[in-house]
């Protein structure tokens, strides 16, 4: 059990700067995120896209912004729990009991939800019967490539994951690569490699096709794919891999008793607290009159939520506002000479 002053859910820009603000005012905090890396939407959706409306930063990409925010956290020792999703939040006397998908447990007076539009989950195939084979013979990521050895693997998608795995698995499997159009959005070099392997009959390439059904009773036996011109092909296959990127799902947050409207959580604009005392929401996921879904708003919201956390984490102390330019306390926490 981890006893901490505050737990942040979400390691995007709003969560990262909130962590900075908490540590700066002397509170300890940890961060949980479902992605395998820090940065949230900035790193997952638009790492290379320039952003032009961060105050005092005329231009930076999502990746650069993330790097700078991580840099700004360097003076502090903050534990990140990546690849973990918060599953449960419940009241335990005057604290919140929080449990993650990996079984980590936190007891804290303050939970700050900086969850963007929810947690990133893989996009799935549309035919319902695919669920039956999920994680048995149909996967949305590869954990152990050895299970595919000598088997037929049908890979769907046109991005880097689909192309990379098609190339890799073609070494010792029979690979079908199926994509909805002729162009691939993955790296050109890999796309070229795929075309070479297709020419050499190492990869069976099916473009302008999409999955329409999976067949099999106990075990997956075959799939049906349909061409743009409605022609249907039946492919025998042992495994199916789908790489359609990630989608944001609100997930378990919906069950924590918060006021949720259209995937956003209502908060006040003093503490950014939700209808539950000690649970705050900052960044894209919070909603109040006039809310702007801008990164800069998330920074402001996090700064105020952090001050509100102080009252619950240190009920017997008085919070004193200080500037980093002059405060010896703050400079010490930042690791600067007094």
């Amino acid at each position, binding site marked *: 059990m981890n006893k901490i002053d505050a737990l942040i859910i979400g390691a995007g820009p709003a969560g990262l700067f909130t962590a900075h603000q908490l540590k700066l005012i002397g509170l300890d905090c940890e961060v949980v995120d479902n992605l395998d890396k820090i940065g949230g*939407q900035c790193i997952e959706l638009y790492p290379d896209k320039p952003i032009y409306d961060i105050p005092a930063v005329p231009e930076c990409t999502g990746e650069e912004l993330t790097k700078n925010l991580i840099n700004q956290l360097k003076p502090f020792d903050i534990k990140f729990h990546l690849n973990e999703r918060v599953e449960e939040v419940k009241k335990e006397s005057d604290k919140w009991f929080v449990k993650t998908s990996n079984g980590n447990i936190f007891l804290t007076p303050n939970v700050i939800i900086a969850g963007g539009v929810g947690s990133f989950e893989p*996009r*799935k195939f549309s035919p319902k019967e695919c669920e039956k084979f999920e994680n048995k013979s149909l996967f949305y990521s590869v954990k152990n490539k050895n299970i595919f050895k000598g088997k037929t693997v049908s890979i769907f998608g046109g991005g880097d994951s689909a192309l990379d795995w098609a190339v890799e698995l073609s070494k010792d499997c029979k690979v079908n690569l199926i994509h909805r159009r002729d162009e691939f959005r993955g790296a050109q070099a890999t796309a070229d490699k795929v075309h070479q392997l297709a020419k050499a009959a190492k990869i069976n390439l099916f473009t302008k096709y999409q999955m329409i059904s999976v067949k099999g009773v106990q075990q997956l036996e075959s799939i049906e794919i349909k061409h743009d011109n409605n022609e249907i092909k039946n492919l025998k296959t042992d495994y199916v891999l789908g790489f359609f990127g990630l989608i944001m799902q609100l997930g378990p947050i919906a069950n924590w008793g918060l006021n949720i409207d259209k995937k956003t959580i209502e908060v006040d604009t003093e503490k950014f607290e939700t209808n539950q005392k000690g649970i705050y929401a900052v960044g894209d996921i919070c909603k109040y009159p006039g809310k702007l879904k801008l990164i800069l708003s998330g920074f402001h919201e996090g700064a105020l939520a952090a001050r509100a956390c102080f009252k619950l984490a240190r009920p017997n102390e008085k919070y004193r506002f200080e500037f980093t330019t002059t405060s010896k306390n703050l400079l010490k926490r930042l690791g600067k000479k007094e």
Partner: protein
Amino acid sequence: MAKITYITSDNQTHTLEVQNGLTVMEGAVQNDIPGIDADCGGGMACATCHVYVKEEWFNKLPKKEDGEEDMLDMAFEPKKNSRLSCQIIVSDEIDGLEVNIPSKQA
């Protein structure tokens, strides 16, 4: 102003007057049309404002940018007449546009 008709997957028809300059996505979101999520808020980064444009309209709309086609790879059941509604800007020229909303966005 342009009249835009949104048809949900259960065949409910919603016809709205949408201001020029807004996107077809914004027209839907601001008027609570169900089925258009627009998670990323119009950044062409999520494919959850996916719509099917009626054939007769599809070729009249300005062409897709490359990035939009890439995002459509990730949309739920994309078809030849698929578009991201955040990339269709409302103007007098598209008065009467009809779009079908897929049964889900993900």
